[in-house]
């Protein structure tokens, strides 16, 4: 019996050692059971979520490098927003990024403090604040860009849902 147990334990360690020494492979996808693929069901991704992901992806922080500026400019150009509106949009995105980072930093500070006390925090209030920030940013875009540019940006963001995947509760 003892031999059986020893063999079992050694087998477990051997299995673990084999797994760790295996060459790195590209992992198979581990998807959440409720993951929505925008390429299949774009209608299940709300515009607010699509805008949030787009704003986060295309906005850049303070003191960006020249490469970051170029990348952002090209990405904005590809939306079809008029040349005369592009700088305005960049300014709006810059404001979004500063507020977004501040909200996330504030929440994460309190979450870390709670974790140190072996407590968890509820992210829903933060999500609501980010949703409100996304909406106010969209409002600014509607107010400050030409209607044509705002419409083009909206059409672009909606069309980008095909490149987005979100968990169901991420809405």
């Amino acid at each position: 019996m003892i031999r059986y147990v020893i063999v079992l334990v050694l087998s477990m360690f051997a299995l673990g050692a084999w797994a760790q020494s295996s060459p790195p492979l590209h992992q198979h996808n581990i998807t959440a059971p409720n993951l929505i693929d925008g390429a299949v069901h774009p209608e299940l991704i709300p515009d607010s979520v699509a805008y949030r992901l787009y704003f986060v992806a295309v906005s850049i922080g303070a003191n960006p490098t020249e490469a970051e500026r170029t990348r952002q400019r090209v990405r904005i150009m590809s939306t079809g927003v008029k040349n005369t509106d592009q700088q305005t949009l960049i300014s709006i995105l810059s404001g979004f990024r500063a507020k977004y980072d501040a909200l996330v930093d504030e929440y994460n500070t309190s979450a870390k403090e709670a974790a140190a006390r072996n407590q968890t925090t509820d992210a829903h209030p933060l999500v609501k604040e980010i949703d409100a920030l996304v909406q106010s940013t969209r409002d600014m875009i509607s107010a400050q860009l030409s209607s044509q540019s705002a419409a083009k940006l909206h059409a672009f963001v909606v069309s980008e849902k095909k490149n987005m995947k979100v968990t169901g509760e991420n809405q």
Partner: protein
Amino acid sequence: MNRVIHFVLGSLALLLACSTASGQGCFQPHFGIYTSVVGDGYTIHTAVTMEGYTTVNCSMTSATHKVEAENVISTTGGWTSSGSGCPTCYFSVTGNDTFTGVSGEIYNWVWDGEAVCTVFGTFLNNGGTGSLPGCLVPSTEDTDDQGWNGSIYRELFEMTLSDTNGDSFDSHTIQEYTVQPGTNTCWWNGSGLVQYPETQNSHWTVGASTHNQWGFDEIGWDLTDLDNIVQNGPRNGVSFPCVATIYQGMQIECNANLWWNYRTDAITITVNNVGDNTEENCRAGECGVPVTFSYQMGGQRKTWWALIFKPVDSSGPPRSSPQIKAVKEAR
């Protein structure tokens, strides 16, 4: 002895329990993953963004989380990490890669977004691969309305391509495709109109007459269809204005039937019967002036339509002609 056996088997059971805990209620991920590809001349910009948080329902005092984005074109790029934080922290990371391709070459693109826990390992991972051709790609396409052509009953649009390097796209072939089936509120069962309008997959040569320009993209209903809509639509439930929308994608040929999708647009054809009967045609948000049309009554046209707000100047230089006539109608 039995204690040893119980200890070992108990440890084994605990290990198995831990490995499944992440997927069975200990925590639940709430993330979004967004990938984008933009071409600008021969430069390809890709980005992978992962953003969100995790709801934790168990004690994870010692654990930390992080999110990572992988973005690799050919042999460039790699992983970008958010840095570690508490399990309930909010994470955001974007991995960017910029690559200059060579015409005719095809490059492998690998992307991935994952959320990692120091206790449970990777608990969310979603990635994919794609092929990116080395290709001269416009980053901008401007659409200009060139007026109404009454002889073919179409609004004419001319487009200008550009990138940040000022490259020439002359002699390159572009074509349209249907991104998704369109919508048509002018349609009714038995109307003979198409319910889900699409593009006609026309193609054009850039710069055939003017540097970096292509056109015309000719948009509108045939007059018989307009007649049908305004005369028969109301008694078949059509309310005005009614709109046909076509979701048009544009591709530029890289070489030998290899195409790069460089933009998508909406084409709308709006018919109204309030006051005069009018048709307004738009491409990419650029609209022609609504044109008035007459309708057929008793085999004769009630009034010969005559309004041409922006006639095409036939005395100017010849316009670029599509290789296939680009009549855009919702039929």
